[in-house]
Every structure is written in C-alpha cells, then in structure tokens.
C-alpha cells in the first residue's frame, strides 16, 4: 500500500490546523492602548518682557501668566499647536503700550484678565469666554457672543462688534482709548502664541536633528532648510547647540542645555511667515516619553521679525511684519486622569 498520499494528507491537515490556531492570535493586542492624560500648560514672563513692536507703538507684557489644559494621550507631542487652546480664568498679563510717534495716543498700562475661560488660537476667533481690561481705573469687559463680542466700558451699555472689527479697534483712532487698549491687549495673545509655536518648532528641529547636533562641536552651526521658493531668495536657518549642561545629560542633548536658532528671511510655509533674527532657548527640559512627561524651555526672542512678507534693511515693524522681542517661559506637564 502506498502510504505517501495518506501521509501527505495528514501533513496538509496538520499544517492547516496549526495555521488555524496561529491565526487566532490576530486579535491579540500588539499596541498598548493609548493612556489619556491632561496636559497642563503655563506660559509665563521672564526677566525681559515679551514685546511686539509696530511702526507707531510697542507693547510689552509683564506678569504674564497664561495657563490652561488640554486632553491628549500619554506620549503625544506636548504642544499648543492646535486649533484653539482654552485659557483658564485668572490667566492674564499687564500690557504696557508705548507710543513711538506724537500722533499715537494709545499710551499706558492695562491689566488683561480672563474672567471666563477663553478659547484662543491663531486664525481662530473665540467662541466662548470673557475677559477684562483695566486701563486707567476703568474696566472694559469683553464678552464673547455668537457673532463676535459685546464690549462694555465701565458702567456703559455694551456695544456689539464682529471679531474683525474688535481686533482692528486697536488702530482705530476714533474709538475710545479703553476700547483700543482692550483690543490691543487681546491682540497680544497672538504674539504669545506665535512666540510659543516658534519655540516649539525650534524644539522639534532640535529633536529631529539630535544625532547631528550631538556629533558636532558645541557652537557649530547646523544648516536647516527654509520653505522659500526661487522667487523668495535663499532663506537661511541655522541651529546651534550652545551649552551642554553639566550633569547626567552631559555629552548628549538634555536637561538645562541651551540652543540658538538664527534666521535670515526664512519662510515657514506652515505659518506663512518669514523669520529674520535670532531666538535663544535655555533651561531646556525635554519631554520624557517613558512616563508622565514634563516639557519646559525658556525662550529669548532677539529683535525677531515675524513677517508676512520678505524683510530687508528698510523693513519697518508693522501689523503685517511685527518685530518680537523679549522672553517667555513655556512649561507643559502631563497629568494622569484619575
């Protein structure tokens, strides 16, 4: 009797049964399910106030403390680059506006405070919240409505504005100074967000080029690419690892290290802005992906143009090409959701 065929049949069936069992493990969880966390953030002042310079005036922020939180998964990149972030009640700052021309009447200090949680973002108008601006003893209360804002100066009845109108009141010489100051204070949030996201971009560049930077001598420039088209000339972007702090992380990029980013008319396509100037980062505390993470860094903007168009030696700071100065501290902390 030929036994090879029954043996072959047995072998085929054995393989078939083994593969049935093996395929049952297709449902096994191979990816650790994401762990939801709350990320608390705080954007705060350092020694030199964060400032925005325009052609007719400059404004600087002191006692800056913008805080809030957002939901994420553990290990996600810690970032405020999202459609909007919610500023907690009591977030605020003092904005000091200094005129640069005799015609500019907006002058003085206002205390900006979020009185009801306010959602803000670049290219995003808040849909909820309220804030106040205390200027020269008068409180201007700005309440977000479905169509824009209701602005009440002191005890006067509120006036309604669309967002674009309210944002532009800062430059409206026919508007009251209280309203102009409230508008100017609100507009400074954009400066904080742009500076924050620029710092985050630099940190992303640092992490993406970690191996290259660690393979170079401290202070050596690493050339990065800009998004300039041929019509826009050669934008320049340079990254330097300037301080390798002593301690356990010495020799590699880690805690308390410092960096410098230099830009020359470098277009950032994501932001549709040109950068020209320098940014220093220090007290670097990189996010740790192993556990609940903390990310922090101090940012120092050195006469940095953040412009909608190419800059040159004659470029005047304006609404479309503001110049940023000063310092800002970023701190993000992941917290377990109980």
């Amino acid at each position, binding site marked *: 009797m030929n036994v090879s*065929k*029954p043996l*072959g*049949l047995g072998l*085929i*069936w054995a*393989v*078939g*049964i083994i*593969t*049935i*069992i093996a*395929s*049952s*493990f*297709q*449902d*096994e*969880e*191979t*990816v650790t399910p994401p762990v939801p966390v709350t990320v608390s953030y705080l954007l705060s002042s350092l020694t030199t106030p964060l400032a925005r310079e325009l052609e007719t005036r400059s404004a600087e922020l002191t006692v800056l403390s913008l805080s809030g939180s957002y939901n994420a998964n553990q290990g996600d990149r810690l970032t405020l680059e999202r459609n909007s972030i919610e500023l907690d009640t009591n977030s605020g700052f003092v904005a000091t506006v200094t005129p640069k021309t005799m015609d500019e009447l907006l002058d003085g200090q206002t205390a900006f405070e979020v009185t009801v949680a306010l959602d803000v973002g670049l290219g995003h108008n808040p849909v909820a919240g309220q804030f106040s601006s205390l200027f020269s003893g008068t409180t201007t209360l700005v309440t977000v409505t479905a169509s824009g804002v209701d602005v009440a100066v002191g005890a006067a009845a509120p006036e309604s504005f669309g967002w674009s109108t309210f944002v532009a009141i800062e430059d409206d010489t026919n508007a009251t100074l209280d309203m102009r100051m409230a508008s100017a204070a609100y507009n400074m949030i954009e400066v904080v967000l742009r500076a924050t996201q620029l710092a985050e971009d630099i940190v992303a560049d640092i992490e993406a080029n970690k191996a290259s930077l660690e393979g170079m001598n401290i202070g050596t420039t690493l050339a990065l690419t800009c998004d300039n088209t041929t019509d826009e000339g050669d934008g320049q972007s340079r990254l330097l690892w300037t301080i390798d702090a002593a301690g356990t992380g010495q020799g590699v990029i880690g805690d308390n290290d410092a960096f410098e980013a230099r830009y020359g008319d470098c277009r950032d396509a994501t932001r549709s802005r040109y950068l020209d100037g320098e940014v220093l980062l220090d007290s670097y505390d990189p996010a740790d992906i192993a556990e609940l993470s903390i990310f922090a860094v101090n940012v120092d903007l050195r006469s940095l143009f953040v412009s909608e168009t190419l800059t040159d030696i004659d470029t005047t700071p304006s609404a479309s090409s503001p110049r940023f100065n000063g310092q800002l501290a970023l701190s993000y902390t992941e917290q377990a959701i109980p």
Partner: protein
Amino acid sequence: MKRWSHWYPHVVAATALLVGCAIYLFVRPASVYYAAGPIPVPLGGQLPSALHTLAFALLGSLMVTRHSMAIAVIVTWGAIEMLAELAQHALFPVPQTLAAYQQASTFDPADLISIIAAIYIAVLVTRITRCMT
C-alpha cells in the same frame, strides 16, 4: 505530459494562501503579523477564513485519486474548519488545552458562511479539473 488544467487546484490553492498572507500583512492592524497599511479590502474580516479553507481543502484533495474521495476530503476539511470556528465561541465546550485558543480568538458567524462558500468553490474546482483531465 500533464494538461494545464491538471494544475488548476495547485494554482488556486497557492493563490489563496498568498492572498490570505497578504491580508494578514497589510489589512489587519490588530494582527501580530501586520506589516503595513491598512489597505481597505471588502470582507477583509472573512476572507482569510474562506481562503484558508479553500487552500487546504484543495491541497488535501490532491492527495487522493478518486473523485469521490477528493470530495470527501474537501468536506472533511470543511468540517474541521467549522469546528475550529465554533470552538471560538465562548459557549462551545473545549478541552483545557484549547482554552487559550478560545480566549484569543473571536467567533464570527460570517466566518461559518465563508467556510461553506469556500468548500463549495473547492468542490467546483475539483469537479472542473477532473472533468477536463
């Protein structure tokens, strides 16, 4: 020299195995064999059962010479596949040695239908092949 139609079952079985492997590699992210994707495939959940049944039924049928025996082998293999699928149901009594298999797998009534369809196709392929050779 054997006629080309003699190789029909071999070709169909090999193709079914290759496509089945591809589904695990590229379509099912939950699979431990998953490599890339996912590429959406209609019936991606049931196709592997059907393809596995078809391939092993045809390969088994090649081990016997008589047509009636080939059909018997195909139907027997189909029964084994049905039992394996039913054993994935939590209420189906299984010996302790198969407890891990039952826990790790997911019973799907649609798989039973796909197995029946595969057996029907295997019988058809076998009949066509044996008629032509």
